[in-house]
């Protein structure tokens, strides 16, 4: 009888040893996986911010696979990877795939415990941005407004990150033709960016570009031009020479130059934008197609008006 009890005790202890050891191993593996996933997201976002989308996608896909298997499909870090992959899809015009990734990420982030409202706000911001990119402005507006609400509740309404959300919403509103609200949001965002970052920051340059585009759409070209030039000069200082953000402002300024009869400058700016778009995004990207159509219009219609 005593032997039997001893046997049971030994077996119990052995089971405990194996169980606890297995838990330890699983936890250690999860910690390593989390660290790898976070490093992957960081590296991927770095590539996104540098405009190197192919490299970003490769890095983030590896991180996503590791997150799904190592952390599980409900983990907040999995949501972060999916969100970052969605950004790549947005920039490479794979809008449907990007929307699916963002929605999955949002679902995970909203259910995660403990939750992180800033991750939720990031994803909402990005969902709005994706609809902006594919010019479904009205669909993007609710997400963009929610991003502001969520982030302002977490950080306060005057935080610079909330200003970035407002600037993003402004671009959507401008696309919807809600010009006055967009202008007001952009002006206040630029003031906040200047205060937070000083005179040189990419966020400021992008907001200036968008404010200029808004004035241009209203026909206020005299107000638009100096803003475009300021935005372009800032981007040239802050970004790599072949960053697609430079091409956007170059294209926009080219449109303005064409409208004001400065065809040589317009042509040079278009060529510059095309070189960058083609290299960074490929000639089939909507931005490259739009810039090429603008340039063709200049070459065929303006320089050969009889055609």
């Amino acid at each position, binding site marked *: 009888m005593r032997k039997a009890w001893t046997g049971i005790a030994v077996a119990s202890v052995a089971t405990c040893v194996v169980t606890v050891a297995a838990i330890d191993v699983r936890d250690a593996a999860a910690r390593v996986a989390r660290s790898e996933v976070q490093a992957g997201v960081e590296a991927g976002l770095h590539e996104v911010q540098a405009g190197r989308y192919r490299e970003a996608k490769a*890095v983030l896909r*590896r991180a996503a696979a590791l997150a799904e298997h190592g952390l599980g499909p409900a983990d907040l870090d999995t949501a972060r990877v999916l969100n970052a992959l969605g950004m790549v899809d947005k920039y490479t015009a794979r809008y449907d795939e990007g929307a699916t990734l963002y929605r999955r990420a949002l679902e995970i982030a909203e259910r995660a415990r403990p939750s992180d409202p800033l991750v939720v706000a990031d994803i909402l911001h990005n969902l709005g941005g994706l609809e902006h990119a594919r010019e479904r402005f009205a669909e993007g507006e609710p997400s963009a407004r929610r991003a502001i609400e969520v982030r302002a509740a977490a950080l306060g309404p005057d935080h610079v990150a909330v200003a970035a959300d407002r600037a993003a919403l402004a671009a959507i509103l401008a696309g919807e033709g809600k010009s006055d609200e967009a202008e007001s949001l952009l002006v206040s965002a630029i003031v906040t960016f200047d205060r937070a970052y000083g005179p040189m920051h990419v*966020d400021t340059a992008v907001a200036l570009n968008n404010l200029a*585009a808004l004035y241009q759409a209203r026909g206020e070209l005299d107000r638009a031009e100096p803003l475009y030039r300021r935005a372009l000069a800032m981007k*040239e200082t802050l970004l*790599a*020479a072949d960053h697609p953000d430079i091409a*956007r402002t170059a294209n926009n300024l080219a449109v303005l130059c064409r409208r004001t009869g400065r065809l040589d400058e317009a042509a040079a700016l278009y*060529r510059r934008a095309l070189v960058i778009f083609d290299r960074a995004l490929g000639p089939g990207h909507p931005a490259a197609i739009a810039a090429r159509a603008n340039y063709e*219009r200049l070459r065929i219609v303006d320089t050969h008006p009889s055609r």
Partner: protein
Amino acid sequence: MSERESNRGDQIVRAGLSKVSGRLALVALLAAAAMSTSSSPARAFNPQPEPPGRWGLFGIVAEQTARVSVVNTSADPRGYPPGPCRVALAFVDSEGIVLKEARLTLDPGQATSLDYGFQAPPDPDRGDAVGATADRAGRQDLRARIEIADLVDPGDRSYPPGPCVPAVEVFETATGRTAFMVAEARMGLAGNHNETLVRDAGE
């Protein structure tokens, strides 16, 4: 008495558990670390030299060679400018004295490099002059310098400033194995913005 024994026994079991699981965890960590080393992306040190193509001082020792290289990454089939680049590659010492240099024109897709091997320290007993060689501790400090002139007027901001990308590498002379590499990366970062792209709809 039995409670104390039980406690002592419990302590022994936990110590044993900790040892076993610690070893297993260590093995798992090592395996995971090995996997992560092989699968993680290479991340180059990014010093963001400013102006582009200039770096701070670095050192080489015996049996090492420094290489400065540049590649014209342009592959645009439509032949948009800037096209070829004129490049000047050089190594200078800590005084700024040019040790070795080369100048040439690079067409799109071409690359070139300039190597500088370790120079033994001067031996005063042999009457060696002190110059661009290693210090007595056997280390030679260098700076790599690259000047890139696009064939487009650099004042003309209508074109991208240039597709030529430089890098500096130090490798073991005998084996070619890289000791370190500094990739030129004059790049800034942009966030995820909603930026307006204007389409020209005419007047």
